[in-house]
């Protein structure tokens, strides 16, 4: 059976120093996450800190009209319309929906949108090959003048539910998280939902190759046009060494790719990382980023319906630990985080086509700079303090029909 060719991916890499507001915005840019992986060299204190991070969510099945009414009632009663985080988990795309920050986002296919009668806009009109889909934003609060009344919205959604019943798709499977589950009514009530507890799953990888040096600061490439009209001003003593800077950037990019690949290998517990791996080169050829040392790695995974606040807690735990190491001897030179976004859930911005086989992954490397070999310096130079700075590198990867990067 011939395998389908890999679809085109778009990646963006960015770097900076800690602390950074960019990392605080990372979780909010991906509101629906279904998995977070954290890898780091073994450290008991950090392991305990991550082990304490738990969350929960609920799943249920109901018509969308009932869900809509329940969300409106929940928002009115609790006064926290933006507290609820709900998303459909069905597989009958492109019809999908999500709810966050007090509004429901409906993603409707061509026929569904033509029969709904709710105003929306076509997404990705310029994307070749993308099926026609429309995004509809319905506020749970009192609608504005230009928006249809709640009765009309309810009638439209009820018609949608009826058509799904007729086509065999049935009711909607959805997952949600609310701060006050006792105030949920209808399909959001505790009696009609199934509770799921998200606990970290911890895995210890022994005797694996661990890179000893992280990434240096990212070199800035020499701009090709610094002045208007394309003229370069050399009065400030700039040296015309553009080629060297571009080479340094290229080397830096290569190093970054190796590190991210290594983090991915740790996430899947690849055998190639083991120190005693003796694989036939005909089967696989892989060499980790060097220089490296052999040690133990921890892999912690959270899987489920994860809200942005919980993802941010994981990120803050990692950055806080690294920051605490700057004043003392570092034991963990780097921490790798991988956030897997739910691509089958529609979001308002940036618009994208909900796809089950899509990709929306963020890989983050948090590292300490200022030391070449923190793993050897730990035992040899005991008591000495090093001048350390925290840095971060983020690699974002998205699939096709996603306008996150334009």
């Amino acid at each position, binding site marked *: 059976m011939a395998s389908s060719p890999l679809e085109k991916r778009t990646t963006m890499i960015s770097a900076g120093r800690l602390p950074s507001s960019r990392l605080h915005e990372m979780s909010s840019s991906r509101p629906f996450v279904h998995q977070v992986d954290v890898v780091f060299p073994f450290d008991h204190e950090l392991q305990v800190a991550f082990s304490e991070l738990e969350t929960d969510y609920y799943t249920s099945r109901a018509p969308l009209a009932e869900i809509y009414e329940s969300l409106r009632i929940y928002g009115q009663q609790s006064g926290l319309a933006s507290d609820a985080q709900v998303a459909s988990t069905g597989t009958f795309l492109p019809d999908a929906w999500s709810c966050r920050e007090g509004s429901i986002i409906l993603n409707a296919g061509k*026929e569904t*949108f*033509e*029969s*709904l*009668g*709710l*105003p929306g806009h076509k997404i990705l009109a310029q994307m070749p090959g993308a099926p026609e889909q429309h995004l509809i934003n319905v506020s749970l609060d009192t609608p504005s003048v230009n928006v249809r009344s709640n009765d009309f919205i309810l009638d439209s959604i009820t018609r949608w539910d009826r058509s799904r019943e007729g086509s065999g798709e049935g009711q909607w499977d959805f997952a949600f998280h609310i701060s006050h589950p006792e105030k949920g009514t209808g399909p959001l009530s505790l009696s009609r939902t199934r509770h799921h507890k998200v606990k970290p799953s911890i895995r210890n990888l022994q005797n694996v190759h661990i890179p000893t040096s992280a990434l240096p600061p990212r070199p800035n490439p020499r701009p090709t046009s610094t002045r208007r009209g394309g003229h370069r001003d050399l009065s400030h003593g700039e040296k015309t060494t553009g080629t060297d800077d571009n080479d340094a950037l290229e080397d830096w990019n290569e190093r970054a790719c190796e590190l991210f690949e290594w983090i991915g290998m740790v996430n899947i517990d690849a055998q190639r990382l083991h120190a005693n791996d003796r694989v036939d080169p005909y089967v696989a050829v892989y060499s980790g980023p060097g220089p490296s040392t052999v040690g133990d790695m921890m892999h912690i995974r959270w899987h489920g319906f994860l809200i942005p606040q919980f993802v941010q807690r994981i990120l803050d735990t990692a950055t806080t630990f690294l920051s605490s190491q700057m004043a003392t001897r570092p034991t963990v030179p780097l921490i790798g985080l991988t956030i897997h976004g739910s691509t089958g859930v529609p979001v308002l911005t940036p618009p994208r086509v909900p796809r089950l086989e899509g990709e929306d992954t963020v890989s983050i490397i948090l590292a300490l700079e200022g030391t070449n070999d923190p793993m050897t310096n730990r035992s040899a130079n005991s008591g000495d303090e090093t001048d350390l700075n925290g840095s971060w590198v983020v690699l974002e990867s998205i699939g096709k029909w996603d306008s996150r990067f334009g």
Partner: protein
Amino acid sequence: MNSSMTIYQTAILQDDKHTPSTSTSATATHVKYTSAEPFTPKFVKDHLTTKSSRAQALYDERVRRRQLGLARRNQNRGANAMKKVKRGVVKREKMSRREAAEMGMWRLREEEARWDAFVPLHRLWLGYMSELLGLVESDDAQAQAQAQTPPAMKTAMPMAAGMHAKLVKADFHGSIMTVRRSKNAALVGASGIVVQETENTFKVVTRKDKLKVLPKQGSVFAFAVPLYSTESSRADSASASAVAAARSGTNSGTNSRGDDDTREAAAAARTVLDGPHIEFELYGNQFCFRAADRAGRKFKHKETIEL
């Protein structure tokens, strides 16, 4: 009269046949003709060389029943009339579209756009549909249903498949048209009685007494036809109203009169959607024709008719 008699007498004297005798007597023979036996028929028949038995038939065929045109017919009058029309001398009988728009022929004033004012038109359309589709009477259908025989049930339910060809050419003025699907989200759900159908639009009056223009392009409409014939129900309602009117002249109770009026008003306001009906979908993209053009048009089968 004396001159005509003189002529007759002169003709007879000159005719040898009628000369009673060959002698040249000085006395003339007088023959009298009356209106019951005039001169001309007898003269013609007597002078025919054929047999006397056929003389009467020949006279009737060739003389008596022959029509003679008194006025000369102008054979070039049609061509001359067309030339005059082309020159613009003769005014067209048909009003142009611009003239109709300027005069507001098809404009409905706001106070005229009332739902209840067009319900009678809708009732007329129901009767038209009943006749066009050959719907059965509801009493017959119920009787057949009570018979509880499968063939009877099938005959009571009209064959919807055979209605399509007739509905495509039918007139929809008076029908209740609803937008089921549309590329324009604002049109979905719009419904009303069709008061005018143009090539590209349906003009409807909604239940809220609003005149709406529904473009045919990019929309899928839905309309309903009654399941049973409404002809008998209209007759019944008419007779019921007549009986009620007669009673009202003799009945002294005002409450019962009010109840009858209310029932009559409710019956008169019933639409096709208030009773058993069959609903059809109409794809507007394929229906962009005038009603008059659609009557004679042949609709070809298409692979897809999506919006």
